[in-house]
């Protein structure tokens, strides 16, 4: 095995397009993705620089053999999965038109994937926020709680608000573009 590197990158569930672009750039610089370790670790291996399209496909671990076979029939190389996402890549040299470089060729199926993310990822996030983060954050005003508790739940509160606002606005905008 050649030279390898490990990178840490924070992408939320709404940033898959940016993630695809970043992985493509890395490959152009001669680093191909070999493995994903949840949640944010990317393993790369040195390779000849090449223009390779990366695509993330959200299946929420529901992919079956039929699906994997079909995607690979289309010339996509399967790299692995990470928290519900499947990672695929394909060299641009084998692409003759725009849709050859896509997992989805119409807006309905693209919008379906975004709705799937909203339902299976955003909804649980919102439930945890309302049922756990908010009640604990409110306890901070209770004088009996420790400083550690206050700091921890303040951070959680900020993190959750950021994630909820960022992801819901972005996913909604992505979906709107498709309508």
């Amino acid at each position, binding site marked *: 095995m050649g030279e390898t590197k490990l990178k840490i990158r924070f992408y939320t569930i709404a940033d898959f397009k940016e993630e695809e672009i970043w992985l493509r750039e890395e490959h152009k610089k001669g680093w191909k993705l070999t493995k994903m370790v949840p949640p944010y670790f990317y393993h790369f291996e040195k390779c000849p620089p090449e223009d390779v399209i990366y695509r993330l496909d959200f299946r929420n671990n529901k992919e079956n053999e039929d699906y994997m076979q*079909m995607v690979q029939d289309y010339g996509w190389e399967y790299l692995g999965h990470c928290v519900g996402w499947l990672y695929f890549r394909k060299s641009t040299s084998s692409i003759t038109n*725009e849709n050859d470089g896509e997992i989805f060729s119409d807006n309905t*199926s693209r919008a379906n994937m975004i709705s799937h993310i909203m339902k299976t990822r955003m909804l649980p996030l919102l439930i945890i926020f309302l049922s756990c983060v908010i009640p604990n954050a409110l306890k901070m005003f209770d004088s009996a709680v420790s400083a550690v508790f206050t700091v921890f739940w303040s951070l959680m509160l900020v993190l959750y608000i950021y994630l909820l606002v960022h992801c819901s606005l972005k996913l909604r905008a992505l979906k709107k573009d498709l309508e």
Partner: protein
Amino acid sequence: MNDKIRRIYIPMTETGFYILFCLRKPQHGYGISQQVKQMTNGEVTISPGTMYGTLSKMEKDGLIEFFCEENKRKLYKITSLGQEILNIEISRIERLYKNSREEI
């Protein structure tokens, strides 16, 4: 045929039409996409995620059915309901074509 199926599938998307049209003969997803590419001089490409989603939905709605498995690939073919939908769609397109020619 119930109204719901009719409402969903007529008029049909280009993707849906070609898939159903190709399945008059048993075929698997990638095979369909190759056939469609050929028929349209490469202008219509159906990507795998869209192909899989459409096949699953059509199978669920009874327009197509599982035919057999070949080299780990599922082959589907059209059902009588699917053929009925396809016929309605073809006459709709014929009318559309005819009317558009008359205009010119």
